[in-house]
């Protein structure tokens, strides 16, 4: 199956700093999602981005499918950005439709 690796595993920032989270995946995929898990455990959809670049406010993401990686950018971080960020990918075929999750990046933003 697909292997998904995220880096860094932990990240501590001061409020206002920028950061880049990385997700590498082992095979070609046609489904790539970024999630933020809030302190209550809910997985919040950030981006559905099997390829290309998207932006939503202070967050943006880029997936380079041919090189098997995706990046999540957080600019002007806020304390509410704290939590675990997960990358998940899948191939979208019957046998590969499950999402495989990385281990996550634990982000802490200090005031």
């Amino acid at each position: 199956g697909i292997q998904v690796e995220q880096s860094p595993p932990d990240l501590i920032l001061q409020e206002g700093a920028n950061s880049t989270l990385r997700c590498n995946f082992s095979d070609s995929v046609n489904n790539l999602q970024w999630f933020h898990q809030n302190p209550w455990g809910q997985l919040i959809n950030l981006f559905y981005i099997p390829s290309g670049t998207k932006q939503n406010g202070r967050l943006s993401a880029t997936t380079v499918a041919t090189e098997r990686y995706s990046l999540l950018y957080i600019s002007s971080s806020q304390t509410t950005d704290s939590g675990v960020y997960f990358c998940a990918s899948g191939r979208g075929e019957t046998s590969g439709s499950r999402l495989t999750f990385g281990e996550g990046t634990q982000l802490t933003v200090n005031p």
Partner: protein
Amino acid sequence: GAGVSQSPSNKVTEKGKDVELRCDPISGHTALYWYRQSLGQGLEFLIYFQGNSAPDKSGLPSDRFSAERTGGSVSTLTIQRTQQEDSAVYLCASSLDLGVEAFFGQGTRLTVV
């Protein structure tokens, strides 16, 4: 509904008892997935359903786990003879079709004592 709804939010059960967890997917979504997240662990795939096709049960950890989806909508995950290692957050997700953007519910936190 507007989002994926799971019930109960929390469940404490005694070892050896059976439990049922419920998932109500987003209306119109044909694909439904179950995952679990153990304390400090990643998200582990359990099973998915797509329309009337046979479910992919390859992630179920033992034969004590089963799931069904009635009428192509609501799904129930059943754990028989619960063990302490079953303690985890069980997450349900749905998507419009297989392999497209999935949306997760808030999860059911299961504690086996």
